[in-house]
């Protein structure tokens, strides 16, 4: 039996994670606006500036925004060590929001000065985030699969940001660091497999038993997922170094193929093994009731193997539309579904924990389920699923009308997330 003294200082104030969570739907709505007004051009080719800008509104503005906010909460509660200099989180929130907005604007409008200023601000936000969170993670008492997964995810967030900032110099009037295909391929392998995939897996080991009474997956499988996900991100990162120092000579196609091969363990772990283990665990949950947030998990997990299949097809055929389809399925199908579902479950939990738990046993306190109606979560799920399917149809048919409808449905989904969050955050004990 492992024995450890827990640090039980308070979790961060609710304002810290919530400020990030509330900003995320704004960026999602902005992505919807770009797709609505940009039409078919936005979803045609991933190298188009407008497409890159839209993708980063999703990856940085929505996905990473939620993950950064959640990290402040998780490191304190799950890892068991508070994040030092907690007030810096407000600065991270402001700097990150401004830099993402500036970065996407600068890329979409091809404004090198704006991109350069934005990445300078982004770099400071990343450092302000990494240093305190890294210190808390370094001081963590235990090293289980979740702690390892969170540590690795934070390290890959840093690598993703570093590679991204370096690549962005290409848009800010300076040169691109190397082979464009290799760098972008490595950038999204580190981001999707190491940062996002590693963190989703690490958190799922805690969240699925806690919120859905799903049995814990065997420890060996959890470690396998976390280590393979990390390997899938480290391999392409190493090959960036190989490319930088020309260690394999002028053979870009060989390095690109090696980078793709190096990502295979991560693809297997994140898009095949983790969804299988989690789906098995959810199928064995002790309570068979299906609430709205569970639908998001099930849909997100179901999208993962499709994402892997599309990644393989897109890479081997080099068809621009399939590349966009892969990004759409990965970001809005797999990650987007899971993030949206987690928000609908975790924000009510945080509100209950911060505002109602201190009053339990003193006054009648509502259950967490009374803080938000499940119908609202299910409505959000319908909108999300509808926008996902519309987007798939729009990308495959290149229909301008469907693209604009996809943009509209993204805006509607963002509005439903914002409405749900604001409604839950308005809940306070009756004095």
């Amino acid at each position, binding site marked *: 039996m492992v024995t*450890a003294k827990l640090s*039980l200082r308070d979790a961060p104030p609710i304002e810290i994670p919530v400020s990030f969570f509330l900003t995320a739907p704004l960026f999602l709505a902005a992505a919807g606006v770009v797709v609505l007004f940009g039409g078919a051009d936005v979803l045609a080719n991933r190298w188009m500036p407008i497409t890159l800008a839209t993708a980063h509104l999703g990856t940085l503005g929505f996905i990473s925004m939620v993950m950064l906010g959640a990290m402040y909460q998780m490191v304190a509660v799950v890892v068991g060590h508070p994040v030092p200099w907690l007030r810096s989180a407000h600065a991270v929130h402001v700097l990150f929001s401004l830099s993402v907005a500036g970065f996407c604007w600068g890329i979409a409008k091809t404004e090198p000065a704006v991109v350069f200023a934005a990445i300078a601000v982004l770099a400071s936000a990343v450092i302000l985030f990494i240093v305190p969170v890294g210190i808390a993670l370094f001081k963590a008492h235990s090293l289980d699969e979740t702690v390892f997964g969170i540590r690795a995810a934070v390290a890959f967030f840093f690598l993703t940001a570093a590679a991204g900032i370096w690549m962005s110099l290409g848009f800010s009037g300076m040169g691109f660091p190397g082979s464009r295909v290799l760098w972008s391929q490595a950038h999204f392998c580190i981001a999707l497999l190491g940062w996002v995939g590693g963190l989703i897996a690490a958190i799922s080991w805690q969240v699925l038993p806690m919120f859905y*009474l799903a049995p814990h997956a065997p420890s060996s499988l959890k470690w396998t997922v976390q280590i393979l996900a990390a390997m899938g991100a480290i391999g392409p990162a190493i090959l960036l170094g190989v490319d930088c120092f020309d260690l394999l000579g002028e053979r870009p196609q060989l390095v690109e193929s090696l980078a793709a091969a190096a990502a295979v363990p991560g693809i297997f772990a994140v898009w095949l093994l983790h969804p299988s283990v989690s789906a098995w665990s959810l199928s064995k949950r002790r309570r068979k009731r299906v609430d709205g947030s569970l639908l998001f998990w099930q849909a997100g997990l179901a999208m993962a193997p499709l994402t892997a299949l599309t990644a393989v097809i897109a890479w081997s055929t080099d068809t621009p539309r399939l590349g966009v389809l892969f990004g759409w399925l990965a970001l809005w199908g797999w990650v987007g579904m899971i993030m949206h579902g987690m928000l609908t479950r975790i924000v009510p939990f945080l509100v209950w*924990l911060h505002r109602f*738990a201190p009053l339990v046993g003193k006054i009648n306190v509502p259950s967490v389920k009374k803080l938000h109606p499940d119908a609202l979560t299910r409505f959000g799920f319908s909108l999300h699923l509808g926008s996902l399917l519309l987007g798939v149809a729009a990308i495959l048919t290149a229909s301008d009308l469907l693209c604009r409808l996809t943009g509209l449905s993204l805006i509607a989904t963002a509005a439903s997330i914002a409405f749900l969050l604001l409604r839950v955050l308005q809940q306070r004990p009756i004095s």
Partner: protein
Amino acid sequence: MQADGRTGSDFEKIRHARVDSDAPEAARASVVAQLQALPAGCVLEIELGFDPSGFLDDLAEHGAPARSRKIARRRWLLSLQPPGERELIDLCDLEAPLPMQRILEAAAELEPGEALIARTPCFPNPLLAQLDHRGFDWEAAESDGASALVWVGRPG
């Protein structure tokens, strides 16, 4: 994982043991001996290599609250309390944060010197912080890598 936040008593309220013998009679004797040595207010978890449901009735005759559950293939966990103790509250079928809510409600009812023991589906970090704030003594331990046992006492 095990943690505590006691202000008074200095012995473990949640104890763990393992009986390796596969022979039920020898194991039963070992369980009864450990039960007799268990101080009041404590809970003992014994990991066994066979299904102990056959002698739960014997333990009930001793007046000792006992529960068993299968935790893996050919592994069972037997939870025992000394005779006459308040029975363990099993909250493993409740989703977060209901176990925390139930324990805080039950703790609010405790008289000085009284205690309760509950099983929760996960290690309850947020609950422990609340118990600290309210001045309760507590001890928590992960019991089988999945659930956790929580002892809560109101200082006398």
